[in-house]
C-alpha cells in the first residue's frame, strides 16, 4: 500500500464523517413531517392540499386542532383537558357531527415548553389549516400562542381559569377570569364567617399575584376588611414553616391561598401538621381542584373551602351524564376538576357557533358567538359574552375526606369582566 492511498482513505473518511453527521439529521428532519395523530405524508402533499383552498373542510369531514402538553411537567394538569375535549368531540360525532361533517382531530404536543406551543400553533394554523384549536393551559403558553392566532386569524378555545386582563378576537375563554372566581367567593366567606382580616398567599407568578391584587382591592374597598399579610413563594417551594408561623402570629379570619403545583401538597400537609385545620382556621382557595386534591390527600384538606365554577359532585342531570360518560371512557377512578369541565365546553360552544353562522369561517364563527347559550353544560348553564368570556356561576365547595368537594353555595350568573375597573 502506498502512503498516498492510505491518505486517500483517511481524507475520504474525514470528509465523509462530516457529511454523515449532517446527513443523519437531514434524514431525521425529513422523516418528521406533519406529526400528530394524522401525520399525513410529505410537505409537498400538504402544499397541494393547501392550494385547493380549504383542505380541512370536506363534504364529510372538518379538521380541528388540539394543542396541550401531553409530556413534560404540565402533562399532570393538561391530561384532563385533553380527555374532556376528546370526549366532547366523540359525543358530537356520535350525534351526527357539525353541519353534517364529522370532526377530525389533529393533536399536537406543546411539551410544557412555551416556544414549542407557538411552533405547534403555527403548524396547526399554517400547514394543517385547522378551523379551530382547543388548547393551552398555563397563561404562559397562551401568551406564547396568542400572536400566532392573531396573525393567522385562528380560533382558540382556552379552558383554564386565569388572571384576566386579556381579550382577543381570536380566543374564547371557557374558564373564569379572575373577578368571576374571586369576588363572589370573598363575599360569601365574609358574610358567612363574618370575616374582617385576610391573609393572602400565592405561588410567585402572574396568576396568583394578579388574583391577590384583585382580592386585596375587593377586601379593602368593598368588604372594608384588612389584608394582614401577602406572601409569595417560588414555584416548587416545599418549606412553609415560616409562613405558617406568620399566619399563626396574625390570626387572620381567612387564609386566602393560591398555591399551585407540588407546593400545594407541602403547604397543606405542613398546615395540618402544625395544627392549623378547618377546626381553628378558615381557609379559602381558588387553586385546588379535585385533580390537586388527589395529590394532597383529602385528610390534609378536609373542611377547607374552594371557590370554583364547577365541582365533580355538582348535583344536576347534565353533570351526572357527563361524569358517567367521562368515567365510562377513562376509567372509574378518574377525577374531574374545574378546568376539565371547562375544556369539555369548548367543542360544544364551537359547534353551536358554527351552526348559528352556518359556516366554518373564523370571522363568521366569531361574529355568531356572542349570546350563544349552552343549557347542557355540566356546570348548568353558560352563555358567551361579547368579550369572549362566559357568563357562569361560582360555587363554594368544602373539601371532604374522600377527595371530593361538598357544594355549599351557588351564586347567580356572573358577568365576565376581564378588565375590571377599580381593581387594577
Amino acid at each position, binding site marked *: 500500500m502506498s502512503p498516498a492511498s492510505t491518505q486517500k482513505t483517511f481524507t475520504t473518511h474525514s470528509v465523509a464523517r462530516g457529511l454523515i453527521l449532517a446527513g443523519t439529521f437531514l434524514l431525521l428532519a425529513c422523516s418528521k413531517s406533519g406529526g400528530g395523530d394524522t401525520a399525513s405524508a410529505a410537505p409537498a402533499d400538504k402544499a397541494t392540499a393547501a392550494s385547493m383552498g380549504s383542505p380541512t373542510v370536506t363534504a364529510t369531514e372538518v379538521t380541528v386542532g388540539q394543542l396541550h402538553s401531553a409530556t413534560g411537567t404540565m402533562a399532570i394538569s393538561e391530561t384532563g383537558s385533553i380527555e374532556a375535549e376528546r370526549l366532547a368531540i366523540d359525543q358530537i360525532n356520535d350525534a351526527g357531527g357539525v353541519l353534517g361533517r364529522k370532526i377530525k382531530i389533529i393533536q399536537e404536543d406543546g411539551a410544557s415548553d412555551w416556544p414549542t406551543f407557538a411552533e405547534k400553533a403555527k403548524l396547526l394554523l399554517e400547514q394543517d389549516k385547522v378551523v379551530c384549536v382547543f388548547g393551552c393551559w398555563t397563561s404562559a403558553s397562551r401568551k406564547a400562542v396568542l400572536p400566532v392566532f392573531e396573525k393567522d386569524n385562528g380560533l382558540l378555545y382556552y379552558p383554564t381559569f386565569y388572571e384576566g386582563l386579556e381579550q382577543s378576537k381570536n380566543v374564547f375563554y371557557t374558564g373564569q377570569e379572575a373577578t368571576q372566581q374571586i369576588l363572589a367567593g370573598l363575599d360569601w366567606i365574609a358574610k358567612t364567617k363574618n370575616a374582617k382580616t385576610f391573609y393572602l398567599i400565592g405561588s410567585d407568578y402572574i396568576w396568583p399575584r394578579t388574583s391577590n391584587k384583585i382580592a386585596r382591592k375587593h377586601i379593602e374597598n368593598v368588604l372594608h376588611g384588612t389584608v394582614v399579610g401577602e406572601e409569595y413563594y417560588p414555584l416548587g417551594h416545599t418549606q412553609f414553616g415560616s409562613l405558617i408561623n406568620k399566619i399563626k402570629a396574625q390570626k387572620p379570619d381567612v387564609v386566602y391561598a393560591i398555591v399551585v403545583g407540588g*407546593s400545594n401538597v407541602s403547604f397543606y400537609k405542613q398546615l395540618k*401538621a402544625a395544627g392549623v385545620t378547618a377546626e381553628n382556621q378558615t381557609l379559602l382557595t381558588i387553586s385546588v381542584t379535585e385533580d390537586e386534591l388527589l*395529590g394532597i390527600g383529602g385528610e390534609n384538606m378536609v373542611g377547607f373551602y374552594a371557590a370554583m365554577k364547577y365541582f365533580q359532585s355538582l348535583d344536576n342531570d347534565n353533570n351526572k351524564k357527563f361524569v358517567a360518560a367521562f368515567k365510562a371512557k377513562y376509567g372509574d377512578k378518574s377525577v374531574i376538576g374545574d378546568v376539565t369541565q371547562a375544556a369539555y365546553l369548548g367543542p360544544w360552544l364551537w359547534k353551536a357557533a358554527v351552526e348559528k353562522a352556518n359556516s366554518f369561517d373564523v370571522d363568521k364563527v366569531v361574529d355568531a358567538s356572542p349570546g350563544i347559550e349552552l343549557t347542557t353544560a355540566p356546570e348548568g348553564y353558560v352563555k358567551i359574552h361579547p368579550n369572549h368570556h362566559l357568563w357562569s356561576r361560582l360555587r363554594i365547595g368544602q373539601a371532604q375526606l374522600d377527595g371530593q368537594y361538598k357544594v355549599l353555595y351557588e351564586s347567580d350568573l356572573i358577568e365576565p369582566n376581564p378588565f375590571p375597573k377599580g381593581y387594577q
Partner: protein
Amino acid sequence: MHVSLAIWAMQAFTGLSNFSVLLLLALGLAIIFGQMGVINMAHGEFLTVGAYTTYVLSQVSERWAPWLEKTYFLVAVVVAFFLAGGLGLLVEHVLVRRLYRRPLDTLLATWGLSLVMQQAFRSTFGAREVSATLPDWLMGSLKPTPSIDIPINGLVVLGLAIALTGGVAFILLRTRFGVDVRATVQNRAMASAAGINTGRVDRLTFGLGCGLAGIAGAAFTTIGSTGPTSGSSYIVDAFLVVVFGGAQSLIGTIGSAFSIAQLQATTEFFMTGSMAKVLTLSTVILILMMRPQGLFALKVRR
C-alpha cells in the same frame, strides 16, 4: 407578649426543621460527593424512590394489611433504604464505576440517569402526584403550652436526621469500613497499596449514599409531594449545602445545613419567600466566592 414568644419558639423550631430537611438531603450527597468526588445529579431521583416506596407500602397496608397501617411508615423507612441503596449499588456498578477519573462526566451521565428514572416513575405511577396516607400519629402536633404547636412530622424528620448523622459519623469514625473510606479519600493509591479494596469501598459508599437518600425520600412524604419530579426540585439546595460546608467534612455539612436553614427561616419571616430564597442563595454564593473551600474544609493531601 406571650403570643410573640410562642411564635418565636415555633419559628426556632421551623429553622430547626428546615435544618433537618437540608441535612437529610445533603447527607447522602455529602458522602458520595465528599468522599468520592462523584456528582450524583440523580440524587433527587433516589429520594423519589424512597417516597414512592412509602406510597406503595401505604397502599399495600391499606388494602391487604390493616394491622400495618399504624406502623408501615417505619417499615417504609427501612425498605426505602435497602431499595434505594441496592439501586445505588447497581448504578455504581454499571455507570459510575467507569467514570471515576472524569468527575465532571459523572455529572452528565447521572443527569441522563435522572431523566430515565423520572420517566420510569411516570410510566409506573402516572404523571399525577400521589399521596401516601399517613398514620394520624404522624400528622398531629405537640402542644407543650396552649399557644405552641410543634409538628410531629417535623420532629420525626429531625429525629431521623440526627439518628442518621450519628450513624454515618459512627460508620466513618468507628468502623473498619469507615477507616477504609477515609483512607481511600485521603490517598487512593496508598490505600490501595495498603491492601484496601478501593473498588469495593467505592461501591459501598455509593450504595450507602443512595440508601440515605431513600430514607430522606420516605421522610419527605410527611412534608412534601410525591410525584415523578418531586426529588429533582431539591437538588440545587442539596449541592449548595455540601459545597458550602466544604466537601469531605461531615461537620461541615452539618454546619452549613444549619446556617443555610437558619438564614432561610429568618429571612423568610421578614420578607416574602421568593426574596428570601434569592437572598439566601446569593449570600451562599458570595461566601463561597470569598471562601471557596467551604466553611469547614478539611486539609487533604493529594
